[in-house]
């Protein structure tokens, strides 16, 4: 699945950048992300994602690595496995913040794969859910930066 979104935010890029690095606030912005902690500052994090679609419940401990950090640019890769469902999750997220008009523009590009039987069964569902997640993230992020 792949989701690309561009958000226009009222806050300055520095402010958005600060919120993106604030772990507890980011946890609160990502639907289904129950916990996250810093393993190595600005390089490696551990998080747990839980998602439910109808009878299917997925709970994955994710190992997240920051693969690129440049001014206004951030790339992450996450990997994890739900042992009970034998499903493996791989994801990468690229974020770019730049100044725009009165505030900033945040480009989000998320790609992911769910492997295993669940991935085969839910191919159509996963794309849809990923889009909902990114849209909900955008709404919560607006709240977090105080729009």
């Amino acid at each position, binding site marked *: 699945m792949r989701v690309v979104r561009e958000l226009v935010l009222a806050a300055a890029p520095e402010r958005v950048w600060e919120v993106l690095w604030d772990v507890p606030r980011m946890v609160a912005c990502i639907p289904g992300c129950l916990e996250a902690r810093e393993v190595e500052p600005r390089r490696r994090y551990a998080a747990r994602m839980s998602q439910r*679609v*109808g*009878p*299917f*419940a997925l709970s994955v401990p994710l190992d997240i690595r920051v693969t690129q950090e440049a001014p206004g640019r951030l790339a992450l890769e996450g990997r994890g496995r739900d042992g*009970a*469902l*034998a499903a493996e999750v791989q994801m990468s997220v690229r974020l770019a913040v730049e100044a725009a008009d009165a505030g900033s523009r945040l480009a989000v590009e998320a790609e992911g794969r769910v492997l295993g*039987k*669940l991935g*085969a*069964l*839910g*191919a*159509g*569902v996963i*794309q*849809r859910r990923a889009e909902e997640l990114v849209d909900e993230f955008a709404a919560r992020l607006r709240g977090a930066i105080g729009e």
Partner: protein
Amino acid sequence: MLRPFELHRPSTVGEAAALLADRPDAALYAGGTELLLLMKARLVHLDDLIDLKRIPNLGRLTETGGGLELGATVTHRALERSEVVRARWPLVADVAAHVANVRVRNVGTVGGNLAFADPHSDLATLFLVFDATVRLASVTGPRELALGDFVRGPYETARRPEELLAGVRLRPWPPRTVGVYVKFGLYERPTLGLALALTLDAGERVTAVRLAVGCVSARPHRLAAAEGALAGHALGALGGMGEEFGALAARAIDPVSDLHGAADYKRELTGVFARRALAAAVARAEGRAPDARYPHAVVV
């Protein structure tokens, strides 16, 4: 091997609702044709199952002035064999007769099919052209919803965790209505399901059109734009409108790519089968047998 779980067997809807109120993570189960497969594949782990099969009220199939009332645990086979359904709701009986295979039809239920909301199934699509409403029960009281509002997306419905689906009501069509259901698929589950009903007046002019498409999008839905294109036309003119009708139907869907095919392919299929369904419905309205034999497709 199934992992251990606790099986609850209520004998009334009230008992089932009380069990569910205490165990919001419990799964409701009747035929088990969907749920047990998932449990065996270890895709779903449950501690509590509430078996609805021993609730006599839920297994009833009755026709009233308001339509056909189907309890949630009425099986596909019961629908297929019921004399009332065969005589007065033949399209429903014919579609039921082509659900999966006879082993599934013997135990699989109408309520299970709707509540599980597998995108690749027939009943929700068919029932949309009967303006169906679903009845939900819970300890806080009953709730009734249009079927179109009940099915939210693949495997997702508007049923709240404490509610159980008690039944569905189909509304009768006006007099002089003909209906067709078409399904296409290379596998046991349909890749496309399409239901079309045309209502004519005494002058053989179309007064109402009902078109629902399922399996290709996140959820089955009616296609108002394509329906509107046929309204008001004479029956004799419909034969020449297949291309336009198909194109409108194809344009109106929001197809999802999955193992049954890519989104573009499903859009194409929708256009082709909307045209074919219209030809079959017109034939039926003219009193001819629809000459509708297509590979991997069922037309009833």
